[in-house]
């Protein structure tokens, strides 16, 4: 090493400021690339879609993107170039984070510029971001969201009851009791939900001319399906309770069912809340499959609304509307599950006081 580079290295070592500036540059770059255009789009109006096109091609967005790329590149170079020289772990992490953010900013900006340069860009904007269409179908989307929640909640409720019964059966020590429950679970886990919906509707409901609505059939089949998955969740939950708990309950004279009801299940229930909520999130998304049954207008759920609106308008923006609806329902639940899992894992008091 020459004296000069040694001097530079020594300078760096004392300058945790370098890591800080890399971190700040990276964060700024991402903010410019994401928040900048977002702010401009909203400020200039999201409808009609020509507004969006104009904003996207405007100088302000171009400036924000290129500035973001420049800052991002600086953060990458600064962060990766200096992180090994940083004297503290925190400074090193800041440098690396700055570089990582810089990479994201550069990639996002490049992607945007690439799409914007394409000759089909105006078409893309019109087909995906005609928010005025969403406004036209606003009431339908609200109904759709409600139907999605009702389908999922109904299916989950039925599924939990069924799953609990099935879990008890597959935990039996008698093979003749286990076998039918196991067969049921494997069948419903092993066949596609879309087949189950179509088959039960066509082969049973239509054939026997049962006086039920498609919506009710949907809840029923979703419940049958969720029951199979919840059964496995309950089984795992029950088996996770220490053997000593049953022994203590039985030695006090409780019957098997009393031990289950008063000692095992209350503890198992708390442990299965996170996986059951996960299962519920999956069920929310699976409600989209009931479109195969051909719902009436008022029975349609989020996906059905989006799909029908697309057929009507030949514009893909309604699909965007559907997905925003799903995320509005699922993201809070995912957030709750993550928090519950963290609490269960870290909880000193274990399952108490939840």
């Amino acid at each position: 090493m020459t004296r000069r580079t040694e001097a530079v290295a020594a300078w760096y070592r004392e300058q945790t400021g370098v890591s800080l500036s890399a971190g700040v540059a990276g964060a700024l770059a991402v903010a410019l690339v994401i928040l900048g255009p977002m702010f401009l789009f909203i400020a200039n109006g999201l409808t009609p879609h020509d507004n969006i096109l104009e904003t996207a091609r405007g100088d302000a967005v171009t400036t924000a993107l290129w500035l973001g790329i420049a800052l991002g590149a600086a953060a990458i170079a600064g962060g990766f170039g200096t992180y090994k020289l940083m004297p503290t772990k925190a400074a090193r992490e800041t440098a690396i984070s700055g570089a990582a953010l810089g990479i994201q900013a550069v990639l996002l900006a490049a992607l945007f510029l690439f799409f914007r340069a394409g000759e089909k860009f105006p078409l893309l904007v019109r087909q995906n971001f005609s928010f005025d269409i969403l406004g036209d179908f606003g009431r339908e989307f609200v109904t759709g969201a409600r139907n999605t929640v009702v389908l999922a909640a109904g299916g989950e409720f039925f599924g939990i009851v069924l799953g609990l019964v099935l879990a008890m059966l597959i935990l039996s020590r008698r093979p003749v009791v286990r076998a039918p429950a196991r067969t049921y679970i494997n069948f419903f886990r092993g066949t596609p939900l879309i087949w189950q919906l179509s088959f039960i509707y066509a082969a049973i409901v239509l054939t026997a001319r049962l006086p039920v609505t498609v919506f009710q059939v949907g809840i029923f089949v979703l419940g049958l399906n969720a029951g199979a998955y919840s059964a496995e969740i309950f089984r795992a939950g029950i088996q996770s309770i220490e053997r000593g708990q049953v022994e203590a309950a039985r030695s006090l004279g409780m019957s098997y069912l009393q031990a289950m009801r008063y000692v095992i299940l209350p503890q198992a229930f708390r442990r299965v809340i996170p996986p059951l909520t996960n299962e519920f999130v999956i069920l929310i998304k699976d409600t989209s499959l009931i479109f195969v049954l051909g719902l009436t207008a008022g029975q349609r759920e989020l996906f059905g609304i989006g799909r029908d609106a697309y057929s009507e308008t030949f514009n893909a923006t309604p699909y965007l509307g559907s997905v925003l609806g799903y995320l509005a329902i699922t993201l809070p639940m995912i957030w709750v599950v993550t928090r519950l899992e963290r609490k269960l894992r870290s909880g000193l008091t274990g399952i108490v006081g939840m």
Partner: protein
Amino acid sequence: MDGTGPLVRLEGIHKYFGDLHVLKGIDLELERGSVLVVIGPSGSGKSTLLRTINLLEEPQEGKVIFDGHEITDIRTDLNKVRTDIGIVFQAYNLFPHKKVVDNITLALRKVLKLGEKDARKRALEQLEHVGMIEKSDVYPSQLSGGQQQRVAIARALAMKPKLMLFDEVTSALDPELVKEVLDAIQLLADEGMTMVVVTHEMGFAREVGTRLLFMDDGKIVEDGNPRDIFTNPRDERTQSFLSHVL
């Protein structure tokens, strides 16, 4: 036959865990009011023997007769029999989702069908007895091991059993917490409760036991007065075991 004759009689008990032969023909009679202490090396089958008495372990061969009734008879209502036999475990096994007092009232209400008030009264009496009354409204996880074990003893006693079984109840405790649990058992012995105590506490075995069993390899090797066995063990295996633990 209730109330007379031995409280427990084991006849030719054999227990297997898979290929493992854990109890190899146990015959035993337990008189009312006696405190039977069972010692022996780990794996000797002493815990399994204890758990056979309330049929937490079902023997493949042999009979268990409790209070004059053969409870290994498949027609026995075991849930009813078990209300007469209290057991305390090494790992306490308190119900973590229930407060201390509710740990005790649960079986009183659901098994003995006591009313809420009576159950609570009886639970508090028992907690008083083991010196845990002031902790009646906390959850087990907020208690020390010794406190949890005293609650477990109170929970078993609240059923008013004829027999108490103690399965290495101090083995999971920090040394400074052992005494409070042993004191609670001692108190019970003084009151004349019939007990079977599996333990590693040799001093306690000598002081409290009215009769001592030494087990090894699934068999009862020595059976007699604790003081005699401790001072003058007959069998070579007993001598060797005692020389290692004393």
